[in-house]
């Protein structure tokens, strides 16, 4: 993240420009935020660099347990957890052609890596919270497809992706889950 490299604050992002320039990382951002339960992606929490064509994500303080603690996971259980009003990129997203690629990437993340990332946050969260976060992430990545299938045409979440060329199909629950 450039802010860490330079120590300089970046200008607010423009989701319209980012989505028009490259929808692939924007789709990835939306799926990632839904996975970690981060509703807060207003324009001061991301930056699209027009020179190197990269999307930088800033501030994830409202993700996972956020300000409310473990009870937040119960609230998020069957919800996508992002809204067009607080997520600029979700608001501008046009379609779902990159969904499969990003879902695949998240499913391919090794479980040990997720555990390690949560354990590395031991200064910020206690052991119970770490365990809850790990369980939440491992469980939620398997349900991302169904959460998106339900929300993909919801105008309060994705007002500009109303008639997608690519439609996300729900997963058949009888299919075995897979992850590494």
């Amino acid at each position: 993240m450039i802010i860490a490299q330079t120590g300089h604050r970046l200008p607010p992002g423009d989701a319209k420009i980012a989505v028009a320039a490259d929808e692939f990382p924007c789709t990835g951002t939306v799926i990632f935020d839904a996975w970690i339960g981060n509703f807060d992606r207003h324009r001061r929490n991301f930056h699209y660099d027009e020179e190197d064509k990269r999307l930088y994500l800033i501030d994830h303080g409202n993700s996972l347990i956020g300000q409310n603690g473990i009870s937040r996971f119960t609230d998020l259980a069957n919800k996508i957890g992002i809204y067009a009003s607080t997520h600029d990129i979700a608001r501008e997203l046009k379609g779902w052609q990159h969904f499969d690629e990003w879902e695949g990437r998240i499913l391919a993340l090794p479980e040990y890596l997720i555990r390690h990332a949560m354990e590395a946050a031991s200064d910020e969260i206690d052991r119970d919270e770490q365990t809850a976060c790990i369980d939440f992430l491992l469980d939620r990545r398997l349900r991302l497809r169904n959460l998106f299938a339900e929300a993909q045409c919801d105008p309060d979440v994705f007002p500009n992706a109303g008639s997608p060329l690519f439609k996300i199909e729900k997963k058949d629950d009888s299919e075995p889950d897979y992850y590494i």
Partner: protein
Amino acid sequence: MIRSLTTTSSEPSNDTVRCWIVQHIADSFRKESRNVGVIVQRGKAFDARFVGESSELEFDDRKLRFLRHPKVYRNWVRYWRRLIQDHEREIDTELSADQDGNFRVIDGGAINRAGADSIESICEYAFAMLVSHGGLGEALHALELGEEPHVVLRESIAREFRSTGLMGGSQNLFGRNPIVANQSIIGNRTVHEFSFTQRHTSLDLIEPLNLRTTQKRHAKDRAGWMAYAFNDVQQSSKRECEIIPFVIAEIPEQRDEVTEYCLNTLMGIATVINWDDLSERGRFLKERQSAAA
């Protein structure tokens, strides 16, 4: 022309020009700032100028060596430029929102008695006064004692051509009929260099003329030169296509004797575009775009 910079904020109107100063703070602990740009507003019109940017809005990294992270600065400049073009946002709130980073925008007060000057020339003045090292001397030089009074207008036109993708050059290699700057054209008696030319089915010659200048004699001379040069090129026997001259002029609302003289001199020779009339300017740019395609 006499102007003064005051520190009093005021509502933007056509008489008062609002000014913001863009500052870079290299060290957030020491909080020592350096002015790196100005943004000015007159009514609904905005203009801005930043250190290291050419008149064609390209960055010269050699002039950004004082910055530790020039790329971050370039990103901020793009953001501010977009902001002043986006009329839906509350500009005052947006500009003052980022105060605790390495770049911030502060209220620079108002510029009084700007008269009939264009927003571009006011921006040049504010930049010279507040940002570049020249200070007042440079500000006056740019506006009154500079090479020629039409230079600021020519740069403003070049910026407009550049931002609409009309200008030929490294950024526009594939335009079919781009506008080219400073091209020499053979006339009947001699060779003339025109500020802008565009070749398509005809050869269009485009020259700026500042009729608001206090250097009235210069304006008269320039109008006379234009009439002669346009005629000379039109009379060249070697010319195979039609020659169409245009004069882009800044015309004062109260037309004086010199303005009338210049416009009469060019009447029937060139089409005069009033650059301050935004609909006329828009029509002209649209015609250039059709010719370029």
